[in-house]
C-alpha cells in the first residue's frame, strides 16, 4: 500500500477520486492475499471485488488510508471465512490439480515452490488457511489475527499448530 499520502495532499481530491486512488493502492496486495486464501485467480478477484464493495458502502465513515486499509483486510478475511462456511465450498477438490500460474512467472524453482505452497494450503480448512496467511504472509501477531477472525488468541494458536502440522505432512509428501 502507498503510505506516502498526506492530509494536505488528500485535500486536492474529491470523495470519488480518493476511493479510486484507494483501490489502485490496495488492490494488488488484496489480490495476492485473496489468491492464497482461494487458490484460484477467478475466486480471488471475486473476493477482492466483494471486499471493495463493502469498503465503498462505508467509505464516508472511513478515514483514509490507514483505517480503510485495515477495514478492507479484515472484511476480506471475514467474507472468505463466512462464504466458505455458509456455502460449504469444496472447490479445491474439483478444480484442476495444477494451480493457476501467474502470467510472466519466472524460473522453474519458483513455480515449483508456489505449487507446493498452494497444494499444502489447499489441504487446510478455511479458518486455518486464513489464520496461517494472516500470521505468516501478512505477518500479524496472534492478537491481531484473533481480532480479524473474531475468536480467542488461544484458538489462533491451536489452529496455527494444526495447520503447520498439516502443511509439514503435505510438503513432505510432495517432495
Amino acid at each position, binding site marked *: 500500500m502507498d503510505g506516502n499520502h498526506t492530509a494536505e495532499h488528500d485535500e486536492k481530491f474529491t470523495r470519488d477520486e480518493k*476511493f*479510486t486512488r484507494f*483501490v*489502485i493502492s490496495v*488492490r*494488488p496486495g488484496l*489480490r*495476492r492475499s485473496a489468491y*492464497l486464501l482461494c487458490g484460484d*485467480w*477467478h475466486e480471488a*478477484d471475486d473476493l477482492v*471485488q466483494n471486499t*471493495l*464493495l463493502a469498503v*465503498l*458502502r462505508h467509505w464516508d465513515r472511513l478515514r483514509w488510508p490507514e483505517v480503510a486499509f485495515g477495514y478492507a483486510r479484515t472484511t476480506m478475511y471475514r467474507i472468505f471465512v463466512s462464504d466458505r462456511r455458509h456455502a460449504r465450498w469444496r472447490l479445491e477438490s474439483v478444480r484442476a490439480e495444477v494451480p*493457476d500460474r*501467474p*502470467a*510472466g*512467472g*519466472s524460473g522453474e524453482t*519458483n513455480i515449483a*515452490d*508456489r505449487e*507446493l*505452497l498452494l497444494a499444502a494450503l489447499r489441504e487446510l480448512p478455511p479458518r486455518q488457511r486464513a489464520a*496461517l496467511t494472516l500470521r*505468516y*504472509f501478512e505477518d500479524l501477531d496472534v492478537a491481531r489475527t484473533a481480532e480479524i477472525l473474531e475468536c480467542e488468541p488461544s484458538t489462533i494458536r491451536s489452529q496455527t*499448530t494444526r495447520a*503447520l*502440522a498439516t*502443511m*509439514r505432512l503435505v*510438503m513432505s509428501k510432495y517432495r
Partner: protein
Amino acid sequence: MADEQSNTEREIRELYRDFASQPLPDPPESDEELVALLRARLRAQERDAEDECLPRIPDEPPV
C-alpha cells in the same frame, strides 16, 4: 516437535516471501473499470433496498 514446527514455520515464511516477489497476473478489469463496476453494484443494491421499503400494493382495492 517444537523444532519441527519452527522449521515448518520458517519454510512457510520463505515460500510466502517467494510468492510475494512474483508478478501478479493481469486482473480481469482495469482499476477504473472495477471502480465503475463497484459503483454500479452499490447503486443497484441501494435501489433494491429502497424497493423493499415500498408498501405492498394490495391485489384488490379496499372496500
